[in-house]
């Protein structure tokens, strides 16, 4: 039961990030398709994006466990994995066909910005919560 609950918690966290990353990749794939006059996305492409995002979310869970988002070494590994997985998969599976070179560069820049935004979001959320926690702690210590 304990093992199952641990696995369940792991699944909850990994699936949360998997969902975020899948939505982002599908969104940008959709934009490139619309700009080229196509209005459909293949089911297989969606499945590939979902699986790649799942793998990356699982790697993220292992590389950046709770409280490790400020470790530079772990962040570098996380960035490397993201780039290898998403750029590699888009080349192997042909996610962005007929996109000119400048478009590829723009997509890679968007990927880097997106990863930066995830890191920044984690930092800001933690920073605000830390401030509230310490304020409540001081208040508790002064009251008693």
């Amino acid at each position, binding site marked *: 039961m304990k093992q199952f609950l641990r696995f369940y918690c792991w699944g909850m*966290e990994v699936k949360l990030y998997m969902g975020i990353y899948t939505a982002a990749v599908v969104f940008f794939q959709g934009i490139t398709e619309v700009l080229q006059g196509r209005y459909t996305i293949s089911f297989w492409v969606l499945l590939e994006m979902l699986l790649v995002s799942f793998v990356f979310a699982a790697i993220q869970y292992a590389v950046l466990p*709770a*409280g490790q988002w400020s470790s530079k070494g772990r962040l570098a590994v996380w960035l490397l994995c993201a780039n290898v997985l998403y750029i590699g998969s888009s080349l192997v599976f042909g996610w962005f066909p007929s996109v000119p070179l400048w478009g590829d560069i723009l997509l890679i820049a968007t990927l880097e910005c997106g990863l930066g935004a995830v890191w920044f979001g984690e930092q800001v959320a*933690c920073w605000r919560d830390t401030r509230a926690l310490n304020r*409540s702690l001081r208040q*508790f210590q002064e009251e008693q």
Partner: protein
Amino acid sequence: MKITVEHGDVPENEIILRCRELDDEMLHVLALLRSGMQTLCAFTENREAVFLSPQEVLYAESVEERTWLYCEGAVWRTALTLAELESRYESLGFCRVSRSMVVNLHGIRRLKSCAGSRIEATIRNGERVMISRHYGPLLRERLGM
């Protein structure tokens, strides 16, 4: 263990523990008696009893079914369990932060929020304790958040 209650015309209530040596049972009795007086009974490796103020305790940890009290510069053993420590000294700031640890909230220097709803507590002696997502909400509740 034999328990005797004597009624008599005495100026002050008195409890005398008579034993050959301070074994685990006696230490537990002593700890329970002392906890009612807002003092904490601890003992050394040589089973010499020491009475501490709960405010001196930074945190308590259970290791292999033994409970250790960590103060600034000293570590003591107590016969009380973590659940007993938590329930008896809750009003003095004792708070359960993991299955094997109770922290005195007055002994925390700072808190840091971490990803995954976890909280890192830095104790006054520099020790860092990771509070899991299970105990995090309990700590927040104790702090009135």
